[in-house]
């Protein structure tokens, strides 16, 4: 999962008085199977960069090439297909469908993948097993604790075996014990050769053995 980011900048509500330059000409490269940590104070453009890499949003200029394919200028149909196939995004606020159960949340990304519901449920069971949340499978997300919600988000992000796993402040609202469990899961993913990008200001991540690169960001540019 070769990712190359060239000259990316992102200006919010361009051309209006409140124009705000979130990213200023970012250049970055992540090789396949690498784990990269984006560290920086909140509001330094980490989340914006992650959303551009995951094609959740489009840059104001510049190019992002993933596996040789330009993803920064994809029409929606292809951007969604790219997200559905190769991106596993773990959001800071988990972004789960509160009214649905854990299993229903985990199967959501696979609905349009062409599999029938039986095989989707098997994949979901496997993914929930690896995220250690299968004992709460049929419980509504509303009633889960922070740690359980995190694990449900992880299960949802990994259900379609993505190549690239992106985490945005994964341990922000977790206690120490759950953070350590999260790092174990990252470790096992790294061993399976996944490419991982984590945006965090938690110093715990910088000392991890399997981290190959740490990038510091300050108000929109790499330091």
């Amino acid at each position: 999962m070769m990712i190359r980011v060239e000259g990316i900048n992102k200006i919010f509500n361009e051309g209006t008085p409140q124009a705000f330059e979130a990213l200023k000409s970012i250049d970055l490269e992540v090789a396949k199977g690498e784990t990269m940590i984006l560290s920086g104070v909140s509001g330094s453009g980490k989340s914006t960069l992650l959303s551009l890499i995951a094609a959740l949003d489009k840059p104001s200029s510049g190019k992002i090439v993933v596996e040789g394919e330009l993803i920064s200028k994809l029409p929606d149909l292809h951007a969604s297909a790219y997200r559905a196939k190769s991106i596993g995004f773990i959001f800071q606020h988990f972004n789960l469908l509160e009214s649905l159960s854990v299993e229903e949340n985990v199967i959501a990304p696979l609905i349009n993948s062409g599999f029938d519901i039986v095989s989707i449920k098997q994949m979901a069971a496997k993914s929930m097993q690896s995220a250690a949340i299968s004992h709460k499978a049929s419980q509504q997300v509303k009633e889960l604790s922070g740690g359980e919600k995190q694990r449900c988000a992880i299960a949802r992000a990994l259900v379609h075996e993505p190549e690239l796993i992106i985490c945005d402040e994964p341990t922000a609202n977790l206690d120490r014990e759950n953070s350590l469990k999260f790092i174990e899961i990252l470790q096992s993913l790294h061993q399976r050769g996944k490419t991982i990008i984590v945006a965090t200001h938690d110093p715990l991540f910088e000392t991890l053995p399997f981290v190959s690169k740490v990038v510091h960001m300050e108000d929109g540019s790499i330091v």
Partner: protein
Amino acid sequence: MPSRILMNNAFLHFLTLLLFKQKGKHIGAVLISVIIIFLLSSVLFISSSLQNTLLGTLENQSDFTLSRVQAGKAINTPSDWLDKVLEINGISKVAPRVYGRYFFTPREKSFLVVGVDLFDEQSSKELQSLVKGLDLKSFLSTDSMLVGEGVKAFLSEHYYKDSFSFKTPQGSFKKVKIQQTLPSQTNLIANDMIIMSIDLAREVFGLGEDEVTDITFNVPNDAEWDNIIGKLHLLFYDVRVVEKREIRKAYENLYNYKGGLFLILYLVAMVTFMLILYQRYSMVYSTERKEIGILRAVGWSIKDILKLKFYETAVVVLVSFVLGVALAYLYVFIWDAPLLSQIFLGGANLPNQVEFVPVLEFGLLGSIFLFYAIPFLAAVLIPAWKIAVTPPKEAML
């Protein structure tokens, strides 16, 4: 096996899941639609069923009715016109008719009194089959009459249990025995009808021996219709000939007007319904917008969300359509539309209760579906698109 694929289809599973999770929003739309469809289809069912039955009875109506006209109003026709009409060749089954409305002034109600020539073999046999167990001898010997259900109810309400005395124009009273009531299936035509022998009817209306109300006759060869009318106009100057075609067209228009005018007034209700729907579906709460943002973030494209919204609305439309039409069918054809039928049968004279013959036309259902579904889908389309294009980064906030 299609049902296996259908049952295991992932999209349908998720669609039905979301449908039941957002029950609140859809139940409102389904209820409004069921009420609107129920009202609309009951009206159209009643009007098409009545129209169908009336056109059915036209079959054995004679082709022409001829009556004398004076100052724009039909008056009694001299019976010697009868033999003059008989002389025209190409005409068959000429029959005089004596009928009219008898006014019961104290209550301002009126009955349709019809005189029947009982010595005519054909009509007496018909009478036998119409009213089971009618012994013709006693009917003929004494002055007696058959009454429609409405008349029977009205008379027994005013203590005329087994006979009624008519006031003839000469001031004398004519006591007539009520023999039997006509069956309830004939209410549409015979609800306020009184059938008696023709000379009794003449006496009640004070018609002379040589006068009839009008003359009916058939012309089997329909190519002859126009020149027979021409001959009649040459024969008598003050004559009015009514063809069966005109009656048929009048019956079609009778309820078409009502259905049509009702539809136009109904448009107002539909427009308000559309505004409510548009406002409800586009008043997207932040939660639903966030949910769509999340779905978009995990890989759903705009096309998938549109597909989800399309099927969601299609399910709501189909369920409420079938429910509305089925309930209307029960209401009209099984419980005989207790209240709504008064609009069609009128309530000013004698109250009437008709058994509607079920009529289900493909076109009628098509009209109801189109009249309801197209505005509904149009109202929901733009809000559905607005939600579907929420940018995925919406989920990031």
